[in-house]
């Protein structure tokens, strides 16, 4: 592994620190910043004459591992898509290499060893880097555009006089609804999404645009669900089995929707796909935030035994909820609508098998 060059080392360090302090939040922002950082890394990396692909991949991996260590959850999805070497791998494979050894037909059973990624490539150094940087730029553009692509499909899913339910706030959902509003009239019920109450912000934004909005508490979701035609939410990440990481409270909404046979639609850009399978999703893939958001710091002081400081009360403030794939009806990605059982295919398209585990 070639040591990272000092020019961008500072930038990497800075980003890693911000990730650790949770100053960077939101999958889109994380993905964009990661991609930009990687672009910097790649362009500054000096490559030897042979084995360039391996060097590049190593560098990207080492940077990636640091980022993942800093904030596994945000990185689980957003970062990986930026780190994804399929853009790297595909580019590398498309580079003509006269020295390439004849490959056995791709029976994955035996040939995964002989995959060409470690093959030496006698291509010009700058061309390789150029292609990779181009790939990353394309990725950045996709990230910018993905809201539009997802929103384009709104008219297929939202119909006249429907009632849509959602919880909290999602930017892609906002654009989705506004796009549909252009041609249909419908209502939106927004659950506030304690403890951050971002549902209030969403409700305001929708109301400003003239959509009829109702704000309800999270506990009222089950009561309202029978009057609702569809639930639409934005995901933070989509795992390889089709499970969804969404802001806390979503699992409850999904269960209520399943109970009343209401379609549960998840908006997820392709950059939210994560090739990992959730082993212990409710705990491992979660981020515990400060309990002060739930209960003010002074309020529970009497619950702590004086003198010994023993706890009798715990305040838990998880950020994410895991929704199993059988509760989701459809994923709307920038490439179209897909079944949860189809997610493995999307992952296979955008990731190559070596990317699944960075270690």
């Amino acid at each position, binding site marked *: 592994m070639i040591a990272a060059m000092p020019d961008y080392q500072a930038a990497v360090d800075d980003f890693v620190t911000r990730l650790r302090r949770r100053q960077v939040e939101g999958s889109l922002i994380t993905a964009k910043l990661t991609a930009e950082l990687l672009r910097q890394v790649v362009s500054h990396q000096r490559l030897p004459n042979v084995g360039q692909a391996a060097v590049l991949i190593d560098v990207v991996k080492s940077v990636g591992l640091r980022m993942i260590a800093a904030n596994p959850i945000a990185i689980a999805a957003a970062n990986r898509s930026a780190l994804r070497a399929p853009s790297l791998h595909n580019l590398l494979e498309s580079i003509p290499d006269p020295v390439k050894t004849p490959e056995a037909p791709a029976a994955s059973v*035996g040939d995964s060893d002989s995959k060409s990624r470690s093959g030496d490539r006698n291509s010009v150094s700058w061309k390789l880097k150029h292609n990779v940087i181009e790939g990353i730029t394309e990725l950045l553009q996709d990230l910018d555009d993905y809201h539009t692509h997802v929103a384009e499909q709104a008219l297929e899913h939202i119909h006249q006089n429907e009632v849509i339910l959602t919880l909290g706030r999602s930017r892609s959902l906002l654009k989705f609804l506004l796009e549909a509003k252009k041609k249909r009239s419908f209502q939106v019920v927004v659950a506030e999404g304690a403890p951050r109450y971002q549902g209030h912000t969403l409700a305001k934004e929708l109301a400003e645009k003239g959509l009829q909005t109702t704000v309800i508490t999270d506990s009222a979701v089950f009561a309202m669900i029978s009057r609702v035609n569809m639930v639409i939410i934005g995901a933070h990440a989509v795992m390889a089995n089709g499970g969804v990481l969404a802001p806390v409270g979503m699992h409850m909404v999904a269960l209520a929707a399943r109970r009343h046979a209401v379609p549960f639609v998840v908006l997820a850009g392709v950059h939210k796909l994560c090739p990992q399978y959730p082993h212990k999703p409710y705990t491992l893939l979660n981020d515990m935030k400060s309990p002060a958001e739930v209960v003010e710091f002074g309020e529970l002081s009497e619950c702590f035994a004086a003198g010994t400081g023993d706890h009798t009360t715990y305040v838990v403030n998880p950020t994410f909820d895991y929704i199993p794939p059988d509760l989701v009806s459809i994923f709307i990605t920038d490439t179209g609508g897909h079944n949860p059982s189809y997610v493995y295919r999307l992952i296979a398209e955008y990731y190559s098998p070596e990317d*699944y585990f960075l270690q």
Partner: protein
Amino acid sequence: MYRSSSLRYESSHRDFSLRGESDEDYLDISLEDDRGWCKPSPGFEVSGSKRGFCHPFHEDRKKVLQERRDSTPNSVTFEWLRQAESASLYAGLKDHTISVSHSVRSWGREVVREKPFNVIHEFDSWRKSPDLAEAVAAIKALTAVIKRSEATTMMGLEVELKNASDTLKESDESSISLSAGCDLFMRYVTRTSAIEYEDIEAGKARLIERGEKFGEISQKARRTIAKLGKDFIADGITILTHGYSRVVLALLKLAASEGKDFNVICTEGRPDNTGAEMAKELVPAGIPVTLVLDSGVAYVMETVDMVLMGAEGVVESGGIISMLGTYQTALVAYSLKKPVYVAAESYKFARLFPLDQRDMSPAPRHVDFLVPLPQVVNVENSARDYTPPQYLTLIFSDLGVLTPSAVSDELIQLYL
């Protein structure tokens, strides 16, 4: 005489039904003989003098059992182990007549063969090694065919291989991993021969090299699966398993060796006593084991955190064909919302699509009910069942962790 020959078997002979002394045994044995006599399995003749012994109920049972072919029980590897043993036993016994109702085949002493080299013999000798899976043994046997082949063109070689592969498959029509392994190798051969080799020897060398590499795959696959699956085992959980699967064992042992703290419930697994076998393997690894009757699966399911099973074959729909009782366990787990994980190597992926339980090649076996039964009682003695994909959560294979819906994609890549 049948009884005496059973005594000749080692005590490790795991054929429990033989040990039973019920009339049922004698019944079936003589029938086996008769049946074998009148309906030899294709490619084989039952080497055997007809026994003088003839049970009075024979006439009636004959009709019932006639449809059931010479049994090749195909419960998972465990049965396989027994067959491997019997293969080595038979090697020296010339006049030994079959008798064993599940001891499958007389290993080709009177088999009609054009070539002096017998692919079945080769297959057997590979199968004697207990760690080698059936499919891999088949591939090694086919590799040996290539080595001994005198063909001068690739096409000729292909034809020879095809014949050998067909023979192997016919020798055991109910084994899925065997035919999957043969198919995979044949697929590879036909694809490779599309590549121009100037020299038949070079082509053969390549195929032989590939065939031999396959042998390593068996071990390697299990390690890969163990590494992939162990993350799903957390501390303090209870795992339910059914059947005896070397892959599942490898997974559990690896997780235990990493210090994970979990316990395992094994189903008894009648009539092969797979539960006891599993327990024997798990205890030295320091894993607490509980045994439960097959009928107790629903009873314990509420205490179970996940179900982990092996498979004999993974079919196109993403479902699995596995030891009898797997479907049941999966159904119970599904209704109690427990995840069901399957560990299966990639060479078990087969081009089959069963639509219901009867839609597979039958794999009957002798079941000892321990009490004499009236002759009009039918016995449903399939060795395996089909679990549809909607009851499975994930499949651990050396191709990676797959959702059942991803299996058909992988199959396409493997076979095309």
